[in-house]
C-alpha cells in the first residue's frame, strides 16, 4: 500500500472503474452515447439526487442516517411553488425561506438524536412522515410555477462546446459539490465529521465538539435537501407533494456505491459524485436502449450495492488485520 493506493482510496478507485466500464459499455452499444451532450446531461438530470446524496454523505460519514430527505425535498418544492404561484412571492425570498426551514428541520432532528440519544433511524423516520404530511398540507396537488425569474434561470446555460451545455440545475449541483469537497477536506467541521464517524468515544475523549458536529451534520443535510427541492422546481417547473418517495434510498445507494461506509468514518464526497454518475449512466443507458425496462436500474443498483458492501467489508478486514494479527 502506498500513498495513493490505500484502504481509503481503493473503494473510490473501484467505483471509478465501474463508472468507466459502464459508460464504456454503453458507448459501444448505443450510438451517440459517447458525446459531450450526454455527459453534460448526466449532471443536469441527476442534480436533485446529487445534491441530496452530497448532504447524505456527511450524515453517513458521521455515523448516522437520514431517512427524511425525500419528504423534505417534496415539502420545500411545494412550499416554493405555492409561495411563488398562488402566493405571489418573488422566488428568491421563497427559496431562501425554504432553505432556512430545511436547515431548521434538520437541526431539530439532530437535536433529538444527540441530546436524547435516540436512534437516527427512528427519528428521521418520524421526520419523513412529518415532512411528507406537511407537504400535503401545503397542497394536495401539483402546483405549477410561472415567473420571470424562473424563466431567466432556465435560460442560463454554460456552453461546453458542441451541443453540450450545463443548465442552471447542473451548475448548482456542481457548486454544491465544490463547496462540499472543500468543507470535507479543508474545514475543522469536515474533519470532525470524519472523526465522529470513525470512533465517537475517542472523538469525545479527544475533546472534539461532538454535539455541535452531530447536530450540525443533520442541519447541513436539511439545507441540502431543501436546496434539492428548490432545484427540483427548476427542473420540473412545478412542485408536487408526492415526489421524491424513495429518494433517500437512492441517495444512500449512491453514497455507498461511492465508497462511503455505512458505519461512518470512511468515504469521500467525490465518491458520492461517482455513485450518482453511475446511477445516471445506467438510467441514461436504459433510456437509450428502449428495449430494457426501468426496473433493471433497481436490480443493477441493488447488485452494485451488494458488491460494494462486500468489497468494503474485505478492505476493512484487511486494514485492521494488519495492526492486530492473531486477535
Amino acid at each position, binding site marked *: 500500500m502506498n500513498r495513493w493506493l490505500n484502504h481509503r482510496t481503493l473503494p473510490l478507485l473501484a467505483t471509478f472503474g465501474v463508472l468507466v466500464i459502464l459508460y464504456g459499455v454503453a458507448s459501444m452499444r448505443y450510438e451517440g452515447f459517447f458525446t459531450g451532450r450526454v455527459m453534460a446531461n448526466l449532471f443536469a438530470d441527476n442534480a436533485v439526487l446529487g445534491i441530496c446524496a452530497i448532504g447524505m454523505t456527511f450524515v453517513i460519514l458521521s455515523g448516522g442516517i437520514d431517512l427524511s430527505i425525500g419528504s423534505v425535498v417534496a415539502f420545500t418544492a411545494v412550499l416554493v411553488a405555492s409561495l411563488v404561484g398562488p402566493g405571489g412571492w418573488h422566488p428568491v425570498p421563497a427559496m431562501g425561506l425554504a432553505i432556512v426551514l430545511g436547515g431548521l428541520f434538520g437541526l431539530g432532528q439532530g437535536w433529538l438524536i444527540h441530546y*436524547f440519544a435516540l436512534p437516527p433511524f427512528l427519528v428521521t423516520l418520524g421526520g419523513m*412522515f412529518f415532512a411528507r404530511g406537511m407537504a400535503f398540507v401545503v397542497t394536495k396537488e401539483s402546483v405549477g410555477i410561472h415567473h420571470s425569474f424562473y424563466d431567466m434561470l432556465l435560460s442560463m446555460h454554460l456552453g461546453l462546446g458542441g451541443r453540450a451545455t450545463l443548465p442552471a440545475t447542473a451548475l448548482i449541483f456542481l457548486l454544491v459539490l465544490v463547496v462540499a469537497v472543500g468543507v470535507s477536506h479543508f474545514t475543522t467541521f469536515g474533519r470532525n465529521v470524519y472523526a465522529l464517524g470513525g470512533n465517537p468515544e475517542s472523538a469525545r475523549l479527544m475533546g472534539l465538539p461532538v454535539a455541535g458536529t452531530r447536530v450540525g451534520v443533520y442541519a447541513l443535510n436539511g439545507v441540502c435537501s431543501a436546496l434539492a427541492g428548490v432545484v427540483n422546481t427548476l427542473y420540473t417547473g412545478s412542485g408536487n407533494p408526492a415526489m421524491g418517495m424513495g429518494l433517500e434510498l437512492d441517495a444512500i445507494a449512491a453514497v455507498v456505491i461511492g465508497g462511503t461506509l455505512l458505519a461512518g468514518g470512511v468515504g469521500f464526497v467525490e465518491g458520492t459524485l461517482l455513485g450518482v454518475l453511475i446511477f445516471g449512466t445506467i438510467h441514461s443507458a436504459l433510456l437509450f436502449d428502449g428495449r430494457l425496462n426501468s*426496473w433493471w436500474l433497481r*436490480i443493477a443498483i441493488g*447488485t452494485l450495492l451488494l458488491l460494494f458492501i462486500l468489497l468494503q467489508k474485505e478492505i476493512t478486514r484487511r486494514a485492521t488485520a494488519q495492526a492486530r494479527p492473531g486477535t
Partner: protein
Amino acid sequence: MSGSTPNKTEPAARRDGGASVPAGRARDAAWRRVLWPLLSLGVLLLFNLFFAPGFFHLEIKDGHLYGTLVDILNQGSKTMLLAIGMTLVIASGGVDLSVGSIMAIAGAAAAILVTQAAWPFLLVVGVCLALCALIGAGNGALVALLGMQPIVATLILMVAGRGVAMLLTDGQIITFDRPAFVFLGNGHFLGVPFTATIVATVLALTTLLTRRTAVGLFLEATGDNETASRFCGVPTRAIKVLVYAFSGTCAGVAGLIAASNIKAADPSRVGEMMELDAIFAVVVGGTALTGGRFTLAGSVIGALLIQTLTTTMYNLGMPPAIAPVPKAVVVVLACLLQSDKLRSGLRIRRTRGGAA
C-alpha cells in the same frame, strides 16, 4: 444478613411468599408491556366515540359483518402481518427494510403462476411462501454469517427486490380472477373478513413457535445480550437466520393479500413504505428497537393503532396523505418514552424490594 452458616435443607421460611410464582404474576408483566399502546388505542377509540358518528356502528348484511371497525381490521391486516414478522427481527436486535419489496415479489410470482402456469392455488401459495422464506433466509445469512449490519443487508433487497418483481411481471400489471386467490383478500369467513382469519392464524402460529418451543427464549436472550447467550450455548446465528426467513414469509402472506385486494400484481406500487409502518407498529407496540423482550400482541395493537389513526382522520375529512403527520408525532413520542435518558431524568428511582 444472617451470620450463621446456612442450612440448605431448611425450608425458605424467611422469604416472603414462595419463589414459585403463580402464572398470574407473569401474565401481569406481559400486560404491563402493552399498556401504553393499548391506552393510546383506547384514547383514539374514545375520541371516535364522541366525535365520529357511526364509527362503532356494526351491521350484518348477507351474513357478513360490516362497519368501520371491520374495515380497520381488514385494511390493517397487511400491516399486522408485517409487524408480526418484524417483531421477531427487531427482537433479535436487527431490522428488516426489505419486507415491502418481498411483498411485491410474492404478489408477482403468485400472479404469474396462477395465470400463466395455471397451477392449483394451494401449490402457488406454498411455492411463493417458500420463496419468500428463502429470500428472507438470504438476508439472515448476510447478517448472521457475514456480519453485515441489518440495515445495510436488508437495504440491498429493498432497492433491488422491486426490480426483481418487475422483472417477473415484465413491467406489467398482471390481473387475475382465480376465485381462491380473490377470496384471500376479499372474502369472508364466519362473518368476518378472511384476512382477519389469516392474521389470527399467523399470530397463533407465531405465538406457538415462540412460546411453545424455546425459540422465544433464545430470541429474547440473543437480543438482550448476544455474548452471554453465545456463552450459554444458544445458537445465536441460527436464530438470526430464522427470524429473517420468518419475516420474509410474513411479508409473502401480506403480499398475497395485497395482490388479492386489487385482483392484480402491481410490483411498482405494492408495499411502498409499508416496512416503515411495520417498524413503527412494533416500536409503538412496546418492543424496543435495541432488541430483547418482544410482544407480538403489542405489535398487532400498534398496527391497529396506525390503521385506526388513518381511518379516523379520513372520517374527519382529512386527506389521507396528511396521515403521516400524527404518525410522526407518535413515533417520536414512543421513542422518547423508550429512551433511557428521559426515563432516568423524569422518574423517581423505585426502591428495590427484598434484594440485598
